[in-house]
């Protein structure tokens, strides 16, 4: 005889398998959409199964919550592709909020008889959840440019931040031993909320890909901790998958910047800016008009376009597609070289270019494309800076020395579309611009690429 309890457990089991398959199918663009279906089906089963639970005595507030959540979720699913980084940060905040609130409620329901292990994971759930909540909101604010993007640093910042976290952990440890002292619990929620804000204040725009990935990982781990508290294997597994994903992405991102985790979180890149900017001096650069640049592009056999955050800011991706079409029509082989940290989150450029309808097999990551540059006639850099800086390869004194870069300087001609000579986010001067083979194309990315397209069209008729 199978009871409701067993049916619920079976839906959870099937949902777990579907979640794993969902991520497995994401490994290739051809099966990826099956992955979404599998995830949706798993979610439907798990939520449906949960609603059967005989402990549920009141459905009113569940229904209200589900409806309100759907009303909020639909617009969140329909944001512009350029707004995806801040949307992602916001969804980390939502996930963390859910976990924190459930953890808080569970504590007050169970206190004062909370077993030690339970109290320990519950504290972990609430600490990770609340710091991820405010941290992600701060990140979303910076990405949406509601908050200033530049890092704000002050002396003793790391000491202040770490002491706060230590106090929160200390209070949690006290509660593990004395769970009846419920009056201390607000500190376990409140201090990490403040810590989350302070943690993101010193982080600049260029570090966002790593930070978003790290917050992703925290959100997953806090959900897994919630799974321990509620004794839900499904939640533990989903949280572990999310945590692993965020962790892998953070490692990738830090590697791509040649920095350690702790360096991203606690290293004040801002202080290095001053040193970098001081080196800047007036050196001659060669600039070109759209007409000259278009002529060189039209004569090329092989062109690699290197997009960066500047392309996203200028919303130039659709103009870039027109340029891709115009060049491809002339028989030019056009590919895109994408640095792992280009943009504001992992894979940001790929999504924007795919949105502009550029086939994904033309989008190559750094390791795939770097061998191609010596045979490339023109490398066209659009709104990217530090990821093309040859100083990372050959100037040991440069703050970004050792960071893997796209070797655009090995192409026969380099073109850089840039608004002015001002240095990039890291504030480091780029020797690429002073090479003899480099042509600076001064202007807004969108209008300059548009001008190139017009010149190419004009030349053909």
């Amino acid at each position, binding site marked *: 005889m199978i009871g409701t309890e067993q049916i619920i457990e079976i839906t959870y089991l099937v949902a777990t398998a579907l979640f794993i398959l969902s991520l497995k199918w994401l490994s290739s663009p051809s099966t990826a959409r099956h992955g979404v279906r599998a995830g949706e089906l798993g979610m439907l089963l798990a939520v449906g199964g949960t609603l059967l639970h005989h402990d549920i005595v009141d459905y009113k507030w569940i229904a209200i919550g589900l409806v309100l959540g759907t009303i909020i979720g639909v617009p969140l699913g329909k944001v512009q592709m350029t707004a995806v980084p801040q949307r992602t940060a916001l969804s980390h905040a939502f996930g963390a909020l859910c976990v924190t609130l459930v953890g808080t409620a569970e504590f007050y329901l169970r206190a004062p008889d909370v077993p030690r292990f339970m109290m320990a994971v519950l504290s972990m759930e609430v600490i990770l959840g609340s710091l991820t909540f405010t941290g992600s909101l701060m990140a979303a604010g910076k990405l949406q440019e509601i908050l200033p993007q530049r890092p704000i640093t002050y002396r003793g910042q790391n000491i202040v931040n770490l002491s706060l976290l230590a106090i929160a952990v200390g209070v949690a440890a006290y509660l593990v031993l004395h769970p009846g002292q419920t009056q201390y619990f607000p500190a376990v929620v409140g201090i990490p909320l403040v810590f989350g804000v302070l943690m993101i204040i010193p982080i600049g725009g260029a570090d966002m890909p790593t930070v978003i990935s790290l917050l992703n990982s925290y959100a997953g781990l806090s959900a897994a901790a919630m799974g321990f508290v509620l004794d839900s294997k499904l939640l533990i597994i989903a949280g572990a998958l999310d945590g692993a994903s965020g962790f892998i992405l953070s490692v990738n991102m830090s590697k791509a910047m040649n920095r350690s985790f702790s360096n991203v979180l606690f290293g004040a890149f801002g202080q290095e800016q001053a040193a970098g900017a001081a080196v800047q001096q007036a050196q001659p650069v060669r600039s070109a008009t759209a007409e000259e640049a278009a002529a060189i592009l039209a004569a090329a056999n092989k062109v690699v376009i290197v997009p960066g955050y500047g392309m996203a800011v200028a919303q130039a991706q659709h103009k870039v597609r027109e340029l891709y079409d115009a060049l491809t029509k002339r028989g030019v082989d056009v590919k895109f070289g994408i640095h792992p940290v280009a943009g504001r989150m992992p*894979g940001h450029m790929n999504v924007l270019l795919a949105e502009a309808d550029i086939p994904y097999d033309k989008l190559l990551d750094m390791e795939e494309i770097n061998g191609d540059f010596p045979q490339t006639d023109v490398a066209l850099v659009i709104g990217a800076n530090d990821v093309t800086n040859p100083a990372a390869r050959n100037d040991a004194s440069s703050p970004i020395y050792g960071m893997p870069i796209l070797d655009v300087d090995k192409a026969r001609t380099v073109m850089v579309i840039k608004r002015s000579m001002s240095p990039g986010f890291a504030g480091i001067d780029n020797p690429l611009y002073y090479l003899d083979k480099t042509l600076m194309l001064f202007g807004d990315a969108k209008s300059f690429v548009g001008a190139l397209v017009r010149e190419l069209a004009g030349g053909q008729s």
Partner: protein
Amino acid sequence: MKLDLLTSLYVFMLAGFIGFEVIRRVSPLLHTPLMSLTNALDAIAVVGAILLVGEHKSTLSTVLGTIAIVAATGNLVGGFLITDRMLKMFRASGPKKP
């Protein structure tokens, strides 16, 4: 009780390894959809919130739980929607399929 915890730890560890191996194979091309999909899957926390609200043990737990359901459902619906929208855009070169 002790055994249950140990089982949970085993589950967590194994899921971590599976996650690591599966996600390592995801192409950098799809890292943004990966993040939005894992976010949507993470919204499974909604089951915890549903039970909390449904059991209706205290006003506090119902209020906090309802907000938690709203947040998680927002992620769930929004996360799947945007992941699918993004993946729809990725197409290979060659003639467009109708």
